[in-house]
């Protein structure tokens, strides 16, 4: 095991974080916001990578975790006075955990295709419930609320500006990344990868595969919910559109384009996709998905290891 790739890797991470830290100070407001969004979607993509890239379970239901995180945050911000940041996080994570437990129950009973279809159905179930239960969820129009202030236990609070919110998001996402990386490199993470490579063999060796899958789904759901909370904080609204399958689909695109099973890859994939969307919509307006979709499909066929995998191979040779 050579030290140099490790060093290069962490150097890259530090540089990326540094650039993102500086971003809101040097970029015009539109692009500064864009950077914050990349971070949030990147977190969502990382959470999905735990399932797709490490455990080998393609989930089309991440919009449910994300959306419930968002609505959970909304619940906190609308019902507690004054709105408290940490309570918001708690509510959002709790909501996401609830959904994750529900999905985890089924996850262990279904293989591959059935799991994917079921997660898709789940995100649609939640969509329909949220869409039609207008009294509680605001239905089609969603909910709007105000941003809480950044409060430091007892030390006073500071309302967010776009810049400080960005730094808050950056901090949360960076910490999440470090936590997830630690987990994926741990023995637990290795078992997940073993499940992806060869589930029957992993079971035969003696691992309680079901238990690992449940934990993987819970982990994935929690971090996806966290992304939802961050989104609610940034945009101050929650809408059923985010629970609709499309979001799940986009997350999968981030994963594939960036490189499954690398954690950083999906973040890069999110950035790549969002930039492509921005760029293409200048020329193709709302049809940007046609070229992006074609690129995605081509990547599935010819570059299944994603951008990062492709780069890794190039650097190694």
């Amino acid at each position, binding site marked *: 095991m050579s030290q140099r790739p490790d060093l290069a890797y962490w150097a890259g991470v530090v540089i990326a974080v540094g650039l993102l830290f500086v971003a809101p100070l040097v970029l015009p407001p539109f692009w500064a916001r864009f950077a914050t969004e990349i971070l949030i979607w990147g977190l969502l993509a990382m959470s999905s990578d735990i399932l797709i890239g490490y455990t080998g379970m393609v989930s089309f239901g991440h919009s449910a975790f994300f959306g419930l995180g968002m609505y959970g945050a909304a619940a906190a911000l609308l019902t507690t006075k004054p709105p408290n940041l940490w309570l918001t996080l708690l509510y959002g994570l709790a909501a996401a955990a609830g959904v994750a437990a529900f999905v985890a129950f089924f996850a262990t009973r279904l293989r591959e295709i*059935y799991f*994917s*279809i*079921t997660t*898709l*159905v789940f995100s649609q179930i939640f969509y*329909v419930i949220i869409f039609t239960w207008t009294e509680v969820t605001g239905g089609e129009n969603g909910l709007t609320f105000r941003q809480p202030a950044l409060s430091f236990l007892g030390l006073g609070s500071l309302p967010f500006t776009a810049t400080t919110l960005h730094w808050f998001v950056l901090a949360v996402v960076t910490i999440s990344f470090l936590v997830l990386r630690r987990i994926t490199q741990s023995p637990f993470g290795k078992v997940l990868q073993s499940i992806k490579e060869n589930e029957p063999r992993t079971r035969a060796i003696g691992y309680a595969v079901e238990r690992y899958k449940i934990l993987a789904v819970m982990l994935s759901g929690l971090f996806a919910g966290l992304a939802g909370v961050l989104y609610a904080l940034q945009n101050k609204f929650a809408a059923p559109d985010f629970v609709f399958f499309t979001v799940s689909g986009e997350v999968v695109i981030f994963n594939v384009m960036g490189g499954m099973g690398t954690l950083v890859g999906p973040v890069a994939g999110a950035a790549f996709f969002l930039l492509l969307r921005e760029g293409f919509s200048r020329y193709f307006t709302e049809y940007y998905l046609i070229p992006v*979709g074609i690129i995605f499909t081509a990547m599935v*066929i010819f570059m*299944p290891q994603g951008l990062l995998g492709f780069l890794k191979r190039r650097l190694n040779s």
Partner: protein
Amino acid sequence: MAIPLDQILIQTVTGLVNGMVLALVASGLTLIFGIMDVVNFAHGDLVMLGAFVGATTVATTGNFWLGLLIAAVTIAVFGALLQVTTLRPLIGRDPLTTILATFGISLVLQKYAIWQWGPSARQIVEPVSGQFPLFYLEYPWYRILTALLSGAIIGALYLFLKYGKYGIWIRATTQDRVMAAAMGIPVPLVHTAVFAIGAAMAAASGVLFGPLGGVTQNMGFDFTLRAFIVVVVGGMGNLGGSILAAIFISLLEAYASLVVSPAQAVIVSFVALILTLLVRPTGLFVPTPK
């Protein structure tokens, strides 16, 4: 809260009609899955494309049957091209990859439809007008015709598979693709042909459904989702099962819409899926494996 009997009976007829259209979509999907292990995420979008091609043809020629035929043939050819270019290279890779690939195709097709035909919905004029009294309603003849036509197409498929030389090829390839190849059956060609047949059936259902529910650019996803549910409940790869499941699910939804709004009625299909996966994952309508 008692629901009047005639309402229930009307919903039964509606459920049966919708069920037959859904059965047509689902049989294509299950056929494709059975023979090449491909879960075609873009199947509903083939329905949508067929509906648009049909709508355009009917609008220009005034002939519904011509629209049906041209839609089926066009989408069959398109499906064949699609399979050869994007799915054939994926044979042997894990099923995750084909789900992702067909998902990507679905995105492109949906947006393409908007680009090609614009964002507004289309209409297809029904080929037979006129109604007959069904209890307290004037029930359109066309709906009955739709159910009969769907049934006829499925029946034709069944006969084709059971008799005829290509039916044997398809069934043999579905059961054991390696041995079929060793017997001289050109398996890659069979795969393409089956995909084309599935696509044609999807297109036909789109055109048949047109006068019932309109032709919209996002109808694809709805069909895909429902077809997936039907195929799982009916048993993946089981043709008879998907037909029964399609009718079963449509009847459930029809009855549910008596008490809740149609948007919420769709939850019963979801619940049916979940129950199937919990209780009998191989399919509710599959005979117990020996």
